[in-house]
């Protein structure tokens, strides 16, 4: 069972809330302070992407985030239920190199890949799940 589970309406304004909750649970789960910025950014990227595909395909459905702090890893799973989310390539492909300011097609995924040392992307029912984890120590407080 996740330590904390949340669902939120797919609106950009709620992504910050998801980031703050994830960071708080990570800290409490014993994730080293030096890694908390990475958790915050990676969770934000995953949630931003989920909000984007939900707004396009299923704006009435909530985005799901499960945070699990048991054991020696802190795990985050961000799940979207967007049936039309079939265009994702994992691992993200680099830009073509012709234009120095060209960005990878899925910049958020490129950022996640650069931040979390353990990332898995899988089809989950109707949509996609992004599972990320970081090492954690003894739970704080």
């Amino acid at each position, binding site marked *: 069972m996740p330590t904390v589970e949340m669902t939120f309406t797919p609106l*950009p*304004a709620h992504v*910050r809330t998801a*980031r703050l909750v994830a960071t708080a649970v990570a800290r409490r789960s014993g994730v080293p302070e030096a890694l908390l910025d990475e958790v915050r950014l990676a969770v934000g990227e995953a949630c931003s992407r989920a909000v984007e595909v939900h707004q396009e395909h299923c704006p009435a459905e909530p985005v799901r985030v499960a945070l699990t702090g048991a054991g020696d890893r802190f795990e985050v799973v961000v799940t979207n239920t967007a049936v039309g989310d079939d265009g994702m390539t994992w691992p993200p492909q680099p830009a073509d190199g012709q234009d120095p*300011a060209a*960005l990878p097609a899925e*910049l958020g995924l490129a*950022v996640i890949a650069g931040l979390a040392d353990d990332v898995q992307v899988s089809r989950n029912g109707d949509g996609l799940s992004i599972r990320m984890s970081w090492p954690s120590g003894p739970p704080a407080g």
Partner: protein
Amino acid sequence: MDLKLEHHTTDGIEVVDVEGEIDVYTAPRLRELLIDLVNGGHYQLVVNMEKVEFLDSTGLGVLVGGLKRVRAHDGSLDLVCTQERILKIFRITGLTKVFGIHDGVDEAIAARKSEK
């Protein structure tokens, strides 16, 4: 912390001071400001990110979009940033090679002037 945007002209260069969090919710406001500045004829821009607490890929996309707009007018968009947690996202995405990133506004302006 919301996003706070201010801008002023120094030595003919438009300096944009950004404070707070640039994410999927707030980035559109930065995008609008950069577009307004370019439409107003400001093609030499310095974005001061020293008070930015959070930056995600949406924010990066807005900065790259701004860079492309000013380059279309032979302009420039330089950044001021010394915070390691913000610089890290530029390194991960390879954008340190795309932007001039400086330690201070004065340094950014001086570097731009020396290239003229």
